């Protein structure tokens, strides 16, 4: 009979592993979509035009986070929720192009400042796109504007938690394996083979 530390580690390994398993599947399955990217299928889109918008003056002079914060109530009145991406300004036609995303849905808002009008194009991009969006969120680009929607802020916590729990699960897994004397030899061979494979490939591609 093993001691209490072993039993505690074993139970935590099991229960925490079960909790993060759906997240691990999201990150694993989406890898295939990234690695074997093909020409995306353009999903059917719906378009609507909303006029008579109440726009605050000086909207076009803003940029970065202040612009995103200023756009949120406007988009809210258009009944659009989601993560606001990088906003493009088109000076010649006095327009802001605002991408908004929810995992599995892409919304492009063309905001005509002079006409106080918005053209909203919505595409349902599906589960594969949702998994890819989640996999690369929050990501390394535009840290000052990213995670501007509460749901994606929450996703960041889950994504971080998945990483920390993977570290715990792998380290506890090594401990649990090391306690199995009968499996040590084969395990050591595989650990060594994996280490050589990993560092061999990483060295080959980076030197």
């Amino acid at each position, binding site marked *: 009979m093993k001691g209490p530390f072993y039993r505690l580690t074993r139970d935590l390994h099991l229960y925490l592993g079960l909790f993060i398993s759906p997240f691990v599947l999201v990150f694993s399955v989406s890898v295939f979509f990234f690695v074997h990217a093909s020409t995306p299928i353009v999903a059917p889109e719906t378009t609507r035009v909303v006029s008579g918008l109440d726009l605050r003056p000086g909207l076009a002079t803003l940029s970065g986070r202040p612009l995103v914060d200023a756009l949120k109530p406007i988009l809210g009145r258009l009944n659009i929720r989601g993560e606001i991406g990088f906003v493009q300004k088109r000076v010649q036609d006095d327009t802001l192009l605002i991408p908004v995303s929810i995992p*599995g849905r892409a919304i492009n808002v063309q905001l005509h400042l002079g006409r106080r009008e918005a053209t909203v194009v919505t595409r349902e991009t599906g589960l594969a796109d949702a998994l890819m969006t989640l996999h690369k969120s929050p990501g*390394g680009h535009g840290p000052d504007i990213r995670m501007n929607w509460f749901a994606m802020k929450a996703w960041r916590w889950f994504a971080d938690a998945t990483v920390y729990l993977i570290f715990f699960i792998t380290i506890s897994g090594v401990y649990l394996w090391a306690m199995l004397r009968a499996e040590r030899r084969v395990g050591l061979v595989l650990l060594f083979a994996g280490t050589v494979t990993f560092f061999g490939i990483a060295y080959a591609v980076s030197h």
Partner: protein
Amino acid sequence: MPSATEPPAKVQPAAPPQAGFDRWNRKLHFYSGLFLIFFLWLFALSGLLLNHPAWTFHEHWKNRQETNYERPITRPRSDAVEDLDQARDIMNQLGIEGDILWTTPRTDPSLLEFQVRRPGHFFFIKANWLQGSATVRHAEVNVWGVMKFLHVFSGNVADDARNHRDWALTYLWAYSMDAVALGLIFMVLSSVYMWLQLPQKRWHGRIDLGLGCLSCGLFCLGLRWFF
């Protein structure tokens, strides 16, 4: 209390096929974990770093080392008609290896501008064979940059058919990523199977797995329904 990580107490001589499957499922669970452990640590750590660009300790691009040089080149061989073949010819002449990234549309048939990338190294090449020379800007980044680039190094660029894998080692790394993903999927499924063999842990496990599925499903499917 029996455990998924403990060997069966006694192995009967005529064990039913189910017992053999259970044993191998358990063995393969930790064998694959041990084999993939460094891959998992790389992708987990680099994923965390990519999600936290504000953490300054892993800054790689600002800390890069750059060298600029110019080398004589000759016109690509006559059978190199496509951009990719001409770029490979120029890379051979310059002794540069890596995956090609096209960033600018081509306007002049005697001028070829492209990037070559491999983890840790970025080459910005402008080749002009009418002038008989190529200028190269070589940026080398630190180990954090190598790790983060390995995380995303598939050779493909989303929504850009012009950029695809064109280096043998990119294929090797891309298929390694596939293998790691497959290994992880197997480990998840095998762990669920092992948990189902433990009746006394089913109730707690159901709560855990249920909470995980609920919270994850909310992001994958639920957000579209609620908003």
